[in-house]
C-alpha cells in the first residue's frame, strides 16, 4: 500500500499528496526555512487553486471550528494566472517533488485558457481541475452535474498533453456518475472529496459567522462520508483515484487505499501538524509492513 508508484505516468516516491489549498509551500518556507525541503511532507505538491484573474478571496471571518473539523470560506485568493506563473511557479519548481497545479475557471473558456497556459509549463507535471464552482452561464455547479463536468473536461482535454486530474465535489447526489462522465471525457485521474457545504452562526449575534454566509466542512467529521464516496467512485471508474477527506493518520490513509484510492491527500490535518504528511507516510509504511494481506476493495 506504500512505496513508490506511478500515477498517470508520473513517478511518485509515495502515495501521500496534499489537498489543494491546505498547504502553501512558499509561505511554509518563509516560516520553516529550507528544513521544509529537506523533509518535504508530500510525495507530490498540489498548488492552491488558481484562476485566470487575480482574486482577493472572501471577506473575513473565513474560519469556524466545528466538531472534529472546521468550516472555511476562503474563496480562492490567488495572484491570477500571470502572477502565479511569474511569482509562484519559480519557487514551487524548487520543491523536491512533482508539481500539480490546480485551476478553476468561471466558464469553460476560462478553464481552457488556464489549462493551455499552465499545461505548457515544464515545471508542471499534472493539472487538477477544480470544478466545484458554479458555471456562470448555466448556473449549475459544474462538478455536481455529470453532463456539465463532461463538457468542461472535453473542452480542455485537447489543450494539454499533461495528465488531467478532475477534483469532484461531495455535494452531489451521485459522485460516481460525475466521475464516470469525467473519465469518459478524458480525465486521467479523479480526486475527491472537496469540502462539504456547511455553515455556522455567530453565537453573539445569531447571524452567519463566515463572511460569505456559508463555507466548506473538512476534517475528521467528513471522513466516513469521503470514504464512502471514494469507494463508490473508484468502483465505477478505471482511472486512478486520489482520496481525501479527514485523513489524519496512516490508518485513515490505509482505509482510503483499501476503499479504492491509488493515492491519498492530507488536508486539514496539516493545520494541526505542519509535518502531518510525513507522519501519515511513515505510519502507512508501518501498516503496510504488517498488513500485506489486505487487498483493496476495488481489486477484490
Amino acid at each position, binding site marked *: 500500500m506504500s512505496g513508490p508508484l506511478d500515477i498517470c505516468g508520473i513517478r511518485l516516491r509515495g502515495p501521500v499528496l496534499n489537498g489543494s489549498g491546505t498547504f502553501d509551500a512558499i*509561505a511554509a518556507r*518563509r516560516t520553516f526555512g529550507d528544513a521544509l525541503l529537506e523533509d518535504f511532507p508530500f510525495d507530490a505538491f498540489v498548488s492552491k487553486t488558481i484562476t485566470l484573474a487575480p482574486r482577493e478571496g472572501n471577506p*473575513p471571518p*473565513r474560519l469556524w471550528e466545528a*466538531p472534529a473539523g472546521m468550516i472555511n470560506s*476562503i474563496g480562492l485568493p490567488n495572484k491570477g494566472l500571470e502572477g502565479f506563473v511569474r511569482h509562484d511557479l519559480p519557487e514551487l519548481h524548487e520543491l523536491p517533488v512533482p508539481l500539480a497545479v490546480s485551476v478553476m475557471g468561471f466558464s469553460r473558456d476560462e478553464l481552457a485558457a488556464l489549462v493551455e497556459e499552465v499545461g505548457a509549463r515544464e515545471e508542471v507535471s499534472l493539472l487538477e481541475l477544480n470544478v466545484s464552482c458554479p458555471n456562470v452561464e448555466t448556473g449549475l455547479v459544474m462538478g455536481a452535474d455529470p453532463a456539465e463536468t463532461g463538457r468542461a473536461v472535453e473542452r480542455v482535454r485537447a489543450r494539454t498533453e499533461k495528465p488531467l486530474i478532475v477534483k469532484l465535489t461531495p455535494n452531489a447526489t451521485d459522485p460516481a456518475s460525475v466521475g464516470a462522465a469525467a473519465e469518459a471525457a478524458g480525465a486521467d485521474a479523479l480526486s475527491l472529496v472537496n469540502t462539504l457545504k456547511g455553515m455556522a452562526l455567530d453565537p453573539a449575534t445569531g447571524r452567519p459567522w463566515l463572511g460569505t454566509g456559508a463555507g466548506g466542512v473538512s476534517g475528521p467529521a467528513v471522513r466516513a462520508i469521503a470514504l464512502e464516496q471514494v469507494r463508490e467512485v473508484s468502483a465505477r471508474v478505471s482511472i486512478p483515484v486520489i482520496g481525501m477527506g479527514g485523513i489524519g493518520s496512516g490508518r485513515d490513509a490505509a482505509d482510503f487505499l483499501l476503499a479504492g484510492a491509488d493515492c491519498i491527500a492530507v488536508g486539514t490535518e496539516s*493545520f*494541526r501538524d505542519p509535518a502531518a504528511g510525513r507522519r501519515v507516510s511513515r505510519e502507512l509504511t508501518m501498516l503496510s509492513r504488517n498488513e500485506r494481506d489486505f487487498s483493496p476493495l476495488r481489486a477484490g
Partner: protein
Amino acid sequence: MSASEPRPRTLAPFGRRLAEVTANEGRGPYRLISALDRNGPDDPRPGQFYMLATAAGWGGVSGERPYLPRAFSFCRVRNGSDVRPTLDFLLEAIGPGTARLGAVEPGEEMWLTGPLGVGFTPPNGRPILVGGGIGVAPILCLHDELGTSVSVLLGFRSGAHAAVAALFPGEPAVVTDDGSVGRRALVTELLREELGAGDDATVYACGPPAMLEGVRAICAEREVPAQLALESGMACGFGACYGCVVPTRRGFLRLCVDGPVLDAADLESAIGPGAGH
C-alpha cells in the same frame, strides 16, 4: 513576501514538537504557563507566536472542541543553563482551547509549532510600549529586549487583571477601567499624554481591537510610526489556510505570515471583521 520592510523572523523547526510544561501559575485571572522547548530556537523575536495544543485531552469536555491548535504570543523566553529555552505564555481563558491550556499541569506535554510570524522591528526613535489586557504578553518580551528605560503604558479591565503588571520590571504606568489600580482611564489616554505631535518615538502596541484602533488613530494624527500586534482567528499559523486575513491598505494580509505585527500605516482600521468578539 509582501511586507515592504523586512521584519524580524526567527525560523521555526519544521513540524510540531512536544514541549514539557514546567509551571502553571495564576496571575489575577490570567495563567502564566511555562514550557521547556528543548528542540526550539532560543531567540524567538518579540511579537512572534506559537501554535499550542495539549498532547492529551485536546478535544475538550464535550469531545467537540478544541480541534485546531491555538495561537499565543510568547511573553518571555528564558535561557538559563538547564531551562533553555523556556517559553512563557500568558493566557486568558475565553473558550474551550484556552480553558484546556489553562488547566495544564507541570510535567504534562504540549504540542507546539513556532516561532511563527514576524515580530516587532527595532525602534527609530524612543520606544513607547502600550499593552491592554492579555495583549501585554508580547509587550513584556519586547520590554525585556529593549531594556527597562522605555515607557510602558498598561491598561486593564480591573485591579485583578492588573496583577499581571507586576511581571514588568521597573514601574510601568497602569490604568484600569474601574480605577481600582492606577487611574480610572483607558490606556490610550496615557498614550495621548505621553505622545507629542511629531514626537521622535516608535509606538508598539498589543491589546483589544478598540484599543489598537485608538492607538492607530492617535499615532496617525501625530504622525508617529506605530507597530500593532493584531489578532485574528487562525487555523494553521504558517500561511497554509488563508483563513487569518485582515484587511489592510495593501489588501488582505495573512496575519500569521505577514503579521501578527503590522505597521499602523498599513491599516485603515485596527478593528477587523470578527475581531474582538
